[in-house]
């Protein structure tokens, strides 16, 4: 199902097959937006749309990385902790006075390394990724606090903070970054042999091995992608907050997983797309934003969020089953 659409050239057919493919979840997003717009006319303003995109950026980027991992049939629970470590690495390197570029490079490197560790432990020691990343979630979360003994670290670098605060051509830089990363991940997944190998490996690991795919290396690279995406999320978050918080990103892994699964990525591996994940992340973002606009109390927000996830996934499963 998933794959067929990619080869249509006719744009109308593409739109139709998009609707077929993401029908359930797309509908859920539209219904949500219509409902919130009726409740509060400001919801649909351009300013608020940008708000939503900015707020959802951190989750969406982490969810892009998570999509790769889930496509392989694995899971990465350490994403929230990596987000926090990344911010702290950036803050510390800036604190050393090395400037923006080295801070950026080292932060991304730290994310890739943490992801690589997850990948190596999963691929080489053959431990289940759930347990590996539960463990590294704890380890990385402990590590965040080491440099400052638990305190947040201020980030004074003007370039770093500009990422979260400034705009380019009237659109916040954060949104440009989300768009760029979406396109990069989407193309890598749907247009390249690497993406194809990911689908094949997630679909049947054994068959992939026999077909000459280096599954171990693949796994390590994909956990690195997840770590890298999480570290970019960490950069955006810390730049929005002008500081690295030791509890940053706590439980964001669950939101990232929810976004991917809402978007039709199967936890069994082998099925899913970046477009779906983006829609999933937007649903979560629109929901949080809309309920704040309606002044829904916090506890009710939790309940409604859970219900919307259930309904959206159910719609999606149902529409897929009907097609099959």
């Amino acid at each position, binding site marked *: 199902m998933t794959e*067929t659409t*990619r*080869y249509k050239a006719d744009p109308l057919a593409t739109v139709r097959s998009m609707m077929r493919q993401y029908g359930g979840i797309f509908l859920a997003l539209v219904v949500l937006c219509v409902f919130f717009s009726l409740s509060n006319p400001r919801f649909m303003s351009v300013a608020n749309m940008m708000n939503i995109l900015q707020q959802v950026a951190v989750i969406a980027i982490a969810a892009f990385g998570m999509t790769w991992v889930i496509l392989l049939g694995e899971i990465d629970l350490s994403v929230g902790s990596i987000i926090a470590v990344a911010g702290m690495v950036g803050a510390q390197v800036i604190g050393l006075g090395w400037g923006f570029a080295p801070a950026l490079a080292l932060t991304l490197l730290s994310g890739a390394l943490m992801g690589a560790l997850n990948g190596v432990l999963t691929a080489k020691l053959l431990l289940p990724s759930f347990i590996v990343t539960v463990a590294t979630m704890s380890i990385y979360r402990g590590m965040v606090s080491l440099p400052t003994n638990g305190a947040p670290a201020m980030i004074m670098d003007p370039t770093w903070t500009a990422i979260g605060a400034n705009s380019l051509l009237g659109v916040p830089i954060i949104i440009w970054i989300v768009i760029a990363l979406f396109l990069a991940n989407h193309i890598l997944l749907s247009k390249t*042999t690497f993406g194809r190998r990911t689908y094949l490996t997630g679909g049947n690991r054994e*068959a*992939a091995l*026999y*077909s*000459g795919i280096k599954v171990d290396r693949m796994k390590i690279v994909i956990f690195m992608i997840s770590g890298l995406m999480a570290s970019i999320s960490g950069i955006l978050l810390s730049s929005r907050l002008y500081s690295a918080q030791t509890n940053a990103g706590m439980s964001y892994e669950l939101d990232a997983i929810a976004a991917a699964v809402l978007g039709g990525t199967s936890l069994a591996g082998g099925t899913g797309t970046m477009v779906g994940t983006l829609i999933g992340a937007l649903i979560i973002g629109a929901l949080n934003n809309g309920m704040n606009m309606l002044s829904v109390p916090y506890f009710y927000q939790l309940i409604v969020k859970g219900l919307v996830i259930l309904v959206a996934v159910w719609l999606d499963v149902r529409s897929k089953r009907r097609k099959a």
Partner: protein
Amino acid sequence: MAETPNDVVLSLRDVSKTFGPITAIRRMDLDVRRGRVHTLLGENGAGKSTLMKILAGVQPATGGTITLDGRPFAPANPQQAAERGLSIVFQELSLANTLTVAENILATREPARFGFISDRRLIERAEALVRELGLPVDVRARVGDLSIAQRQLVEIAKGLSHDAKIVILDEPTSSLSDAEAEILFGIIGRLTQAGKAVIYISHRMEEILRLSDDITVMRDGEYVATLEKDRTGIDELIALMVGREMTEIYPPRLGPAPGAGVAPVLEVSGLSREAEFHDISFAVKPGEILGFFGLVGSGRSEVMKALFGMTRAEGEVRLDGAPLTLSGPAEAIARGLGFVTENRKEEGLVLGQSLRHNITMASLGRVSSRGFLRRRLEGRQAREESARLGVRAASIEAAAGTLSGGNQQKVVLAKWLMTRPRVLILDEPTRGVDVGAKFEIYRIIRDLAAEGTAIVMVSSELPEVLGLSDRVAVMSEGRLQTIADRTDLTPERVMSFATGQTK
């Protein structure tokens, strides 16, 4: 027909079954009589297993009537079917690998008081059953630790553990060697003598003609004919089944076998892997078909996996004279080796993905440039391979899992043909494949050899090995017993090597 009507214990009229838009069975009739073996014959995807699943209460029929002992029969679940005296051995293994043999055989019928299981009695009962059937399995062993053949025996024991009036056996011998199959045939004889009815499904014509009393042929989900074994022959059955005449099962060699002067393309010397195989040496020339015969568990698959780099092994493998480091399938494929694995569902196909994905998966480099897929090229090449093998599917975008067994096997072949291998290893290439498809696969193997591909074909079917190979290697207990020209071998001689009687 002299029998009285009450001889008929199970009777199907007008039974049909649809899966959404797909019609798997349309208007099927069948009469099964006690004390007789009734064989269902049909191509892959003809609807045999589906019909049996209806009888076993796994799936409901969508139309028609079934009567059992003169009373209507529409089981809602397998337990209801069992209560009415019907038991089934499924085609696909339905065992839990983490449980023991005893636990699997008596699953849901464990000897228990107030819900508490008596493990002692469970073992006793399972042991008694296995002994009575004469099956060589340890009931305490974990199913996951058994070989495929042994698992199939466990599956049979499980099916026969019910005291049933009607026993359904859906391709029970597809993973069994002849010795084990003999045990099963003995059991079937005892069942019919005790007045039970047996419904039997198989693609092996020899055993069908030996076992059956009645044979019903199905085609495309429809009833074709019911024949008595004594009044028919293999040619008529095949013609009914595939809808055309087939005179020769093994296509003739298209050219002369490679002469003595031709250098081998693959040379294996002293290949060993602890506890699996020892000191295996052989060579194949371009255009040659080397058959690998042996009993199930003799270690043939392990040898092939090792030389493909899937498992570590000692010894030397040379391709075109240059050594292969056995570092993994990627190297093997790059050097021109192909491996059609034994278990297509687990090792061969990504069932949830399209034929196109499956066909190109081992040669992605050939349909991409600089890491980017060229989807037109990919589609064209996948279509070509699929057409070349005559895969019957709606399109190359259909999911592999929706095809019948024989067509799935052809997709695996297509995947490896697309890599343009110089040496192609085929492990049980026709397991569970119907006669028509078998013939096509044989034809493809012949064509490949004629084009100069070296073929190594592992098979447990002696006629197949003898019918196709230029030379035959026989393995027993992890050792190579002989390699000889086809012309120097008789079935008896091969068997005596395979059973270790001749060294």
